[in-house]
């Protein structure tokens, strides 16, 4: 994940481990979750949604090209940079992300109901396109 450097992906600086805890040091973002922003705004304008989706898809294309997939994309995992605009998002929470070529995990059911692609629910083999499906659901919500 630290190899991922993109304006729309949250930056991981360092990892610490102590006897009882694991710490991931991340960049600080002030805008809160996209989920809360949608609730506050009610509805996105076509223009705002358009810029947001461009950012999201650009970040997805980038991480897929580096061999990672997220597998749990949803508005709660997209963090806004600040309160100045409604489209500057960063992908966060890579807890379920995985390396695309890692065969054994590609059958595992994961994600959040409502955002998850049909091939995961059907227990079929899937690939990084499951992220694109989730992105589509997010666009629909906007």
């Amino acid at each position: 994940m630290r190899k991922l450097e993109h304006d729309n992906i949250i930056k991981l600086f360092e990892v610490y481990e102590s006897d009882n805890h694991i710490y991931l040091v991340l960049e600080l973002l002030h805008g809160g979750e996209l989920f809360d922003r949608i609730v506050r705004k009610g509805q996105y304008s076509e223009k705002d949604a358009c810029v947001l989706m461009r950012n999201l898809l650009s970040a997805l294309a980038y991480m897929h090209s580096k061999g990672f997939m997220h597998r749990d994309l949803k508005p709660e995992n997209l963090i806004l940079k600040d309160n100045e605009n409604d489209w500057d998002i960063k992908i966060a929470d890579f807890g379920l992300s995985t390396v695309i070529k890692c065969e054994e995990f590609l059958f595992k059911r994961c994600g959040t109901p409502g955002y998850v692609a049909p091939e995961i629910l059907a227990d079929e083999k899937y690939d990084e396109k499951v992220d694109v499906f989730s992105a589509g659901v997010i666009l629909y919500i906007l």
Partner: protein
Amino acid sequence: MRVEKIFTENEKEEKFGIRLIQNAQFCEIYARAQDVQEKWVTALSKFCVLTNYSSCFVNIKAIGKGSFARVFLVKRKSDNAELAVKTFDKNLLNSVDKARVTLHLSIFVISNEI
């Protein structure tokens, strides 16, 4: 792999060592001067897990809570920079979650090795 500085307080001669640890095995490397030791640790922190969290950061307040982790606003002691830190309590993780966090950490390491 973890990296930590070696502290040598009681010896006559000051030494500037680092210790690399993996699966209960470790190796120690000594630098000629403190700034070299610092450079090594900085460079290795991009690939390794560090161990001295509480000496580097002060937690200010909790800003978020996920299913497995809590997120804190913290201040880095060295330059007062504000950052976000996602914290997992190892004792609260069940085996499935533990596997997930391990996976998370291994992705972190793998991603830097590519």
